[in-house]
């Protein structure tokens, strides 16, 4: 059975090709069936392989063929399968299947039904390639593949030029990170002589000492790629704009799978990062800074999808924090639970947007609790998990991260405090969303409630978001053992109670109104802070001034080819003289004679000026 894992990415890929070729001829029912069933088949295969693996947890490697052979360099089309791969594959195919099913209803009236499923299937294939790759080059292929699919799907409704702009931004900003990652791969290959992940880890362990400079540089370059793909500071600006795509796409690509690729990359190359403690610290700090920045920003947004986008950035910040403090298992665990509850939230928001005439502004919604009960409960459970209320899936993963961050010597308590502040904000903004959208008076009437193809994924994801915390992910073999020490009990109690305080605050401010913050908000400091956080800490503005505009100005200058101007000047001078001289060519003989005569006189006069001895 395990030999069949190559079928898992192949089936969605074939389906994608089929959908591209048959987009004009296939009937709509068949398109939906093909799109959903291919991912469903991949999910079933993953399940079967997973069950076999759990019975006999032995990592294995499968080489299909040699991709290319250049000197010593011979990367294969090869897959590596262990607990981490299994977790990632389960998330991709499982959550992916539910999102595909949801899409059949969400995209029902769209003219480009086949194109949508072709892209989505191709994305699943590329993402599976990314997590199954045995060498970093194949991983890079999948990495770029998901980038392309993300670009295509963000700009899916390309008739609106703003969507195309958002797609290009997503592509260009992640490209900056990808360039760093490509440099990292080149460095690793020249230093270690291989890109096969397992062999590379072994070679790195032998050649390098902990704290050497080379592993630090390599890790920072890989981190650059991870930061771009996972929308962390300072390359996070593309993710909020990427919400221009269809909502199920945001759920699949920009919440559950692709944006967590950076987390996967760092977890996969953990052997390398363990050699560079400084890089680990940077990962943790990047995560902490991002999670706080994004949480504050999410608090101010009014577009339902942008709130979720910033909360995604913030939650991935938690994963980075976990990786940075060496809590590998907790990071991957949070990746999985986050995939469940964030896909749930995004699909829920998709249902709202679908039945509310494409309304995005949460302040124009309200009172949807009784009109859309399934969506309401999805949001309740999803937000509870996002806020890490006790007993939900998010609680288990986030709690682990916070406690392990606390255990880090020296910086630990500070990281824990920052994470705790983030958790408080998370609870506030996620329940702000729930209270504003589902309670209060109704401002817009929905067209109806979700059909079964939307309701079923929501219900299943609700279940996963609730019980996902009790799963035990089989990654013990993949990562070095975490310390079994436990922090003092008061740390645990504080970690548990902070989200509850956030919920209470959110209730008092946004629902009962007992806590009035109007005076605070309306003060001049409050107003400017509000604007500052609303704009995402002005980072887009800053990039616009520092990079985008100077670039436009430079290219505007270069458009007129300033260097050519020198040669243009020479041409212009010649043409001017030519023009003057052409005027003198009248065709009148007498003028020619006269000019010759006067010229002669002139030359003779000049010649006579020269003293005789000089001749």
């Amino acid at each position, binding site marked *: 059975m395990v030999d069949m894992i190559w079928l898992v990415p192949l089936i969605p890929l074939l389906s994608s090709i089929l959908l591209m070729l048959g987009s004009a001829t296939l009937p709509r029912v068949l398109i939906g069936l093909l799109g959903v069933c291919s991912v469903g088949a991949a999910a079933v295969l993953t399940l079967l392989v997973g069950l076999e693996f759990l019975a006999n947890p032995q990592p294995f490697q499968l080489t299909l063929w040699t991709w290319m052979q250049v000197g010593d360099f011979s990367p294969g089309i090869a897959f590596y399968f262990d607990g981490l791969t299994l977790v990632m594959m389960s998330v991709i195919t499982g959550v992916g299947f539910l999102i595909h099913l949801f899409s059949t209803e969400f995209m029902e009236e769209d003219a480009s039904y086949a194109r949508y499923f072709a892209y989505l299937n191709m994305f699943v294939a590329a993402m599976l390639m990314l997590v199954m790759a045995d060498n970093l080059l194949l991983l890079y292929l999948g990495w770029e593949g998901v980038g392309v699919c993300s670009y295509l799907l963000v700009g899916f409704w390309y008739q609106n030029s703003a969507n195309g702009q958002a797609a290009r931004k997503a592509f260009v900003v992640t490209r900056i990170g990808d360039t760093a990652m490509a440099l990292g791969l080149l460095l690793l290959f020249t230093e270690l002589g291989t890109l096969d992940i397992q062999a590379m880890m072994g070679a790195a362990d032998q050649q390098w000492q902990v704290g050497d400079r080379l592993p630090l540089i390599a890790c920072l370059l890989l981190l650059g790629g991870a930061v771009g793909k996972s929308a962390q500071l300072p390359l996070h600006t593309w993710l909020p704009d990427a919400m221009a795509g269809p909502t199920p796409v945001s759920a699949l690509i920009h919440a559950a799978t692709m944006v967590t690729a950076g987390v996967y990359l760092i977890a996969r190359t953990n052997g390398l990062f363990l050699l560079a403690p400084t890089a680990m610290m940077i990962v943790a700090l990047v995560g902490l800074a991002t999670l706080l920045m994004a949480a504050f920003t999410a608090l101010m947004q009014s577009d339902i999808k942008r709130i979720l986008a910033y909360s995604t950035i913030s939650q991935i910040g938690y994963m980075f924090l976990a990786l940075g403090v060496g809590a590998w298992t907790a990071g991957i665990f949070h990746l999985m639970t986050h995939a469940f509850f964030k896909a749930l939230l995004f699909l829920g928001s998709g249902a709202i947007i679908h039945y509310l005439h494409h309304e995005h502004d949460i302040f124009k919604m309200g009172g949807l609790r009784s009109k859309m009960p399934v969506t309401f409960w999805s949001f309740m459970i999803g937000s509870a998990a996002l806020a890490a209320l006790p007993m939900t899936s998010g609680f288990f993963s986030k709690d682990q991260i916070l406690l392990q961050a606390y255990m880090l010597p020296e910086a630990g308590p500070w990281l824990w405090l920052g994470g705790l502040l983030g958790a408080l904000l998370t609870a506030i903004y996620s329940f702000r969303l729930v209270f504003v959208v589902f309670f209060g008076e109704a401002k817009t009437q929905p067209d109806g409630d979700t059909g079964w193809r939307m309701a079923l994924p929501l219900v299943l994801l609700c279940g996963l978001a609730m019980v996902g915390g009790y799963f035990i992910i089989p990654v013990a073999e993949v990562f070095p053992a975490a310390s079994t020490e436990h922090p003092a009990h008061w740390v645990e109690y504080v970690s548990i109670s902070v989200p509850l305080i956030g919920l209470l605050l959110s209730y008092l401010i946004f629902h009962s109104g007992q806590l009035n913050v109007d005076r605070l908000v309306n003060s001049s400091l409050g107003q400017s802070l509000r604007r500052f956080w609303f704009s995402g800490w002005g980072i887009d503005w800053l990039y616009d001034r520092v990079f985008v505009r100077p670039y436009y100005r430079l290219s505007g200058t270069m458009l007129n080819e300033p260097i050519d101007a020198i040669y243009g000047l020479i041409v212009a001078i010649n043409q001017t003289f030519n023009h003057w001289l052409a005027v003198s060519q*009248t*065709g*009148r*003989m*007498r003028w020619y*004679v*006269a000019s010759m*005569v006067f010229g002669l006189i002139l030359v003779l006069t000049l010649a006579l000026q020269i003293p005789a001895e000089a001749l």
Partner: protein
Amino acid sequence: MEGLNIPLNHILLVSTLLFSIGMLGLMIRRNIIFILMSLEVMLNAAALAFVAAGAHWGQPDGQIIFMLILTVAAAEVAVGLGLVLQVQRRFKTLDMDSADRMRG
């Protein structure tokens, strides 16, 4: 040497005068016949200067060059008159300014 002895300067003066008259005619005349005649005057002015210079230094070169100029002038007149005929035929006039375009 017997006979009239005219100083070289006087002859050169006459020659210059003739040359100038010819050149002036070339510059201000429009009739092609007169242009040709002005050219002849200039040629002869130059020839006169050669002969005078040859006589002054007692060298034969001056007279030899005079012969050459005579021949050149004859050839020039032959070609020139041919051109005059052509101009007359094409433009029905002898005004040189009417032939100031390349296309006939």
